[in-house]
């Protein structure tokens, strides 16, 4: 029982970063932009938040947890948005190939994270020496009373606020997409920009806003990882392929962030499953680690077999739009 509880808690902890990434990517893809730069943007968001908190804590004698938290949050949002803005400028304004720009941005973002991670490690005195304990503590604070309730409280209330925020944002984005005018227009842009344009929707504006907001949301996934998951430190490349899992989750959730909530739990669970299966060989562990991708492929096969149009990617995903093209 105890081990199951730990497994679920850890699965949720793994899932949160992926959920942020998936929600951000869904929002972006609904505008017709396939932002493969999301993994890099999550790195950028993570390191920027960490740097903000690090410099704040190093330059004040008595850092206030809330201030550290707000500063890091702001740094993350700004850095991730800049990532989204670079992508938007290149693909929307200059109409560069989305895949190439996305992959370049991911390579850049990972390098950006590792470079500054290494730099502040040096400032802090060596590898693994960065510590923004005060800020991280604020991120890790859980509900004081509720979390003590046996089982249910342990299951639901032992996480920091970013965990709840990830679910709330997923629900809000879904509601926005399905029930509001902005959402309707955004979906139209992703399905057929020419149609949206003819209907008087400002296509480029929608694409920019969706991509930048999507990047900002994904950036929070990186922040969650360094602050709550790692506890306010940095280790090069340790974020791993969670960013790619986020993009896979978008497909698993059929472009619906609410589905991504349970999907992130599945992915989080599968991601760490190898630790909880006793007696696995090294090779076995690696095979188990493949499971999230296997699940994605199976879901892809099933959804394309059912061929329900609503479950397909936005029709103009990956294409740039130019009005006067003939």
């Amino acid at each position: 029982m105890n081990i199951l509880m730990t497994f679920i808690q850890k699965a949720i902890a793994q899932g949160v970063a992926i959920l942020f990434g998936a929600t951000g990517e869904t929002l972006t893809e609904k505008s017709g932009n396939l932002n493969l730069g999301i993994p890099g943007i999550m790195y950028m968001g993570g390191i920027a938040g960490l740097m903000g908190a690090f410099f704040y804590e190093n330059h004040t004698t008595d850092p206030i947890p809330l201030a550290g938290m707000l500063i890091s949050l702001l740094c993350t949002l700004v850095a991730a948005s800049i990532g989204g803005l670079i992508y938007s400028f290149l693909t929307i304004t200059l109409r560069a190939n989305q895949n190439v720009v996305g992959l370049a941005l991911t390579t850049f973002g990972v390098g950006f994270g590792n470079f500054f991670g290494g730099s502040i490690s040096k400032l802090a005195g060596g590898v693994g020496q960065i510590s923004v304990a005060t800020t991280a503590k604020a991120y890790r604070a859980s509900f004081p009373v509720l979390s003590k309730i046996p089982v249910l409280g342990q299951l639901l209330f032992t996480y920091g606020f970013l965990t709840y925020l990830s679910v709330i944002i997923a629900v809000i984005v879904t509601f926005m997409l399905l029930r509001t005018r902005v959402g309707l227009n955004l979906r139209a842009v992703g399905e057929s920009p020419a149609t949206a344009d003819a209907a008087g929707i400002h296509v480029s504006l929608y694409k920019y806003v969706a991509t930048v907001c999507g990047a900002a949301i994904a950036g929070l996934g990186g922040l969650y990882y360094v602050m709550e998951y790692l506890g306010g430190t940095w280790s090069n490349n340790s974020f791993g392929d969670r960013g790619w899992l986020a993009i896979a989750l978008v497909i698993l959730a059929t472009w619906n962030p609410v589905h991504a909530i349970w999907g992130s739990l599945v992915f989080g669970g599968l991601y760490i499953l190898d630790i909880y299966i006793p007696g696995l060989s090294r090779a076995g562990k690696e095979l188990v680690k493949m499971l999230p991708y296997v699940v994605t492929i199976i879901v892809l096969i099933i959804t394309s077999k059912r061929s329900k149009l609503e479950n397909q990617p936005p029709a103009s995903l990956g294409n740039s739009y130019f009005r006067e093209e003939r």
Partner: protein
Amino acid sequence: MEMKNAIELSHVTKRFGEVVANDDVNLTVREGEILSILGENGSGKTTLMNMLSGIYFPDEGSIKVKGQEVTITSPKDAFDLGIGMIHQHFKLIDVMTAAENIILGLEGKQILNMDKVKKQVQELTATYGFDLNPDQKIYDMSVSQKQTVEIIKVLYRGADILILDEPTAVLTPQEIDKLFAVLRNMRSAGKSIIIITHKLNEVMELSDRVAVLRKGKYIGTVETRTATIESLTEMMVGEKVSLDIDRSEPHDRHKRIEMRGITVRNAEGTKVIKEASFTSYSGEILGVAGISGNGQKELLEAIAGLQFIESGEILYYSPEGEVKKISDMKADEIRKLKISFSFVPEDRLGMGLVGDMDLTGNMMIRSYRNGHGFFADRKKPRKLAEKIVDQLEVSTPSVETAVRRLSGGNVQKVLVGREIASQPTVLMVAYPVRGLDINSSYTIYNLLNEQKEKGVSVICVGEDLDVLLDLCDRILVLSGGEVAGIVDARTTTKQELGLLMTGHKKSGKEKEVLS
């Protein structure tokens, strides 16, 4: 009664790079009239209207709406002025419902209230006599239903100037009558309607005045009741054109292709051809009619060996009297039997020709196996290319020009020319004149007739029923992948074809003619 002008265009010019799409165009549209804009493909009709609807912005000239000089920089500006355009290729989102498409891009409360929208849509449909379910998804709709959504979308925005770009191109004759009735209702309600078309009989039937464009230039506007089809054609083409297709009686009829109960499924697993059976004969033109997407393309591809045939068989009767089953042959084996297939999709260079290769190269696609040993023979294809350029009056700088750089009509001539040069016994063409001007169209019709005279069995998929009626000997009508009937083109009517196209099967046995 004094007529007010709803729209006045003066000296409007639009260029795309070096191409002048509209050159110094002047045009007026009155309130409460139906104005036809007539012109051949590429004459700039759509470009001109796109400037009114805010898709393009004019390089020169001014636009007045209801007496006020205006600048229209986006579709939204156009809506605000009460101008709504129904595009030829519907601008609808497939995965959304009719109601969602109608309110797309509109201002209003952020949280959507779809029930209210549906009620408003139903009021509009009741007023003008439309038939529409606001909850239906677009991908479940027929072409004419989609068009209805487009028109209501524009009316919902309060437009009183409606522009329809080739609205009848994809409709059956019955649906066209319905549409015209609705348009006349709107005219009585005081709305101005602009209809872009190149079909002369529709112009005569529907419009009050006709404005003619030719090669981007404005030629003039005439009252419809003072015009005739001949006079309008002359304005449109710039010279007198004979619009008669010289149809001869078929002779030496022999069986060529016999299709027996063919069923074909598409990639999604739905049946696109259901139990289709027909026979084609040498020395005749068999027309294939149907609403687009009802299996015309698959029918030809099944014969050409490009489709996987689920059941049934196709037999080929060679002129020498042999009978071969071709339904289990590969495309290149069928080619060797001299069954030639030329397909003109919207993307003309998709299947028939290679855009980046020159004329000679494109000829070689058919003959590259004929070279000596290792080297391909370029001489014969080059001669063939020169012959085609010469005989079909292809306008090209040389046979070394990449096909991509030729105009649509010339590309089509090259393709059909090459197919005919392989001396087929069966020639299948799909949409042979799509996008061509009148002169080129008639060149192609004459080519098909020549082939028929030579004893070739010609199968021609067409969209213009008037032309099919004039060109073909028999017409096969497809509806939902089924053969709804085969009729004699000399005795049938457009109405009969229309009924067959919408799935009213011919009662009794297939009417065999001339046998």
